[in-house]
């Protein structure tokens, strides 16, 4: 059985838009093209109605009230708005923020920006499984703390943080709790009430919607969260985020959220099944394969593995018929290996040797088998070419060697 190449195994980066979503959004380009803020005619009313229906779908997926959803351009903007917006609004109250060293750059760089402007930021350190404990959060909270920001599912490893327990700690200490749920939204259940979440960032293109549309959940009661707007203008979205609403994208986001919510249980089971099958196929037939992540607390579609003694980019070259990503320095602009994997205590060598495979709605078992076969062949070929593999075969301990770092 042949598969159509290239095989897409990078669903954590982005997804194709589901055809049902495309069908739903199309009329809003050419027929129902009104501005949702136009209150004086039917075009505006129709657009507004569609936007509100979408808002309800997105809200329902996280157990929120539609009034608590603010549309943004994507999760990066949502993270910026949540963190800068709270820090600025509560500047009188305190200037301390708590986050984690494996967060996405949209959170880390926003925190670094605030540090340059006088804020104090605590970066909690994860354990080998990529997790932090609620106790670490409790211990870091001070009188000055205004916000805790902990991601739900990690983009590189898929590790899922204990949000409900962290949320409980934050609520007890009356500190606002933000989560970047970009990867987890639509994949695993989220309940902002049960988890005591005050702000939550999400994006459409990770759930088979279009790029360029996201949302920030902002709690309205118990407690009411107030933000300083970061984009000023016509006062859209209750003043939280000005700018004409991208109606077709919003409609699409709503439809994508509806499908994700309705199919979540079944889809998560199927995708996790494929992921576990792939992991088993690879680890049972290839030596020295390390799982980067937590054995249990993982998003359904993530599989991050290190193939020891092979550099990740050279393996990607061999997998030219497969779309996936690597934690290798050579694939990043910075020439540094993945900071997420290093934060989990992985040494640089294994970080260089890592591949992230993310499985999604349209992945088939045939595609997984195809990729597993390729990996078996090329891991073996590249190890035959690896001086490190040769040394290990000769019984040499690589750590005993004084390497010349360059």
């Amino acid at each position: 059985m042949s598969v159509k190449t290239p095989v897409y195994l990078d669903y954590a980066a982005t997804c194709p838009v589901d055809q049902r979503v495309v069908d739903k959004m199309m009329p809003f380009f050419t027929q129902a093209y009104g501005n949702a803020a136009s209150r004086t005619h039917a075009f505006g009313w129709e657009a507004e109605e569609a936007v509100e229906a979408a808002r309800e779908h997105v809200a329902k997926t996280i157990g929120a009230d539609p009034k608590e959803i603010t549309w943004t351009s994507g999760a990066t903007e949502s993270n910026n708005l949540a963190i800068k917006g709270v820090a600025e609004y509560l500047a009188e109250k305190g200037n301390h923020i708590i986050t984690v060293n494996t967060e996405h750059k949209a959170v880390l760089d926003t925190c670094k920006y605030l540090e340059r402007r006088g804020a104090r930021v605590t970066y909690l350190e994860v354990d080998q499984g990529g997790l932090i404990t609620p106790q670490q959060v409790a211990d870091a909270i001070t009188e000055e703390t205004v916000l805790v920001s902990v991601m739900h599912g990690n983009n590189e490893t898929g590790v899922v943080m204990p949000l409900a327990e962290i949320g409980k700690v934050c609520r007890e200490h009356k500190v606002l709790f933000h989560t970047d749920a970009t990867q987890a939204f639509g994949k695993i259940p989220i309940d902002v009430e049960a988890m005591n979440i005050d702000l939550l960032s999400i994006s459409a293109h990770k759930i088979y919607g279009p790029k360029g549309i996201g949302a920030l959940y902002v709690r309205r009661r118990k407690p009411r969260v107030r933000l300083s707007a970061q984009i000023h203008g016509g006062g859209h979205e209750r003043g939280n985020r000005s700018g004409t609403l991208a109606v077709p994208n919003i409609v699409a986001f709503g439809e994508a959220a509806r499908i994700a919510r309705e199919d979540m249980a079944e889809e998560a089971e199927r995708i996790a099944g494929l992921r576990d099958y792939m992991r088993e196929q690879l680890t049972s037939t290839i030596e020295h394969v390390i799982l980067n992540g937590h054995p249990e607390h993982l998003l359904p579609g993530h599989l991050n593995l290190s193939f020891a003694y092979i550099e990740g980019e050279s393996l990607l070259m061999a997998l030219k018929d497969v779309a996936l990503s690597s934690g290798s320095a050579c694939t990043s602009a910075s020439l540094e290996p993945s900071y997420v994997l290093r934060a989990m205590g992985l040494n640089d060598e294994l970080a260089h040797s890592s591949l992230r495979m993310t499985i999604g709605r349209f992945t088939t078992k045939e595609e997984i088998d195809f990729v597993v076969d390729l990996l078996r062949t090329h891991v073996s070929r590249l190890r035959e070419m690896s001086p490190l593999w040769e040394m290990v075969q000769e019984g040499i301990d690589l750590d005993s060697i004084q390497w010349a770092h360059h």
Partner: protein
Amino acid sequence: MAYSDKVIEHYENPRNVGSLDKNDDGVGTGIVGAPACGDVMKLQIKVEDGVIKDAKFKTYGCGSAIASSSLVTEWVKGMSVEEAGSIQNSQIAEELSLPPVKIHCSVLAEDAIKAAIKDYQEKNGEKNGTGAGETR
């Protein structure tokens, strides 16, 4: 990142992959780089009468690193030790059309051949005669 055709060709059909007996007096071994940096090259030469008769490599690294070491083993075969010692990284980078971010791969290949020559010369008493063994 887009690779040049020559890099892809060497990566897919690497020349002279393998090992020579490092305990042979006629063999010089150079190992350069570090696993933590994402590249380690082992380059070996077998010298007879001042001429490199054979060359082998093993490389842990990206496609450009593999291609750089493959290319160098191809070049040095038949060269005198002196000629091989004068290979410049810029020649390797030019031949493989390496982009600026991959220049370090060619530097490593130059270092590897120099280290192999140094090992050979030390073994054969041409420098300080201590036979200091493998060059890291």
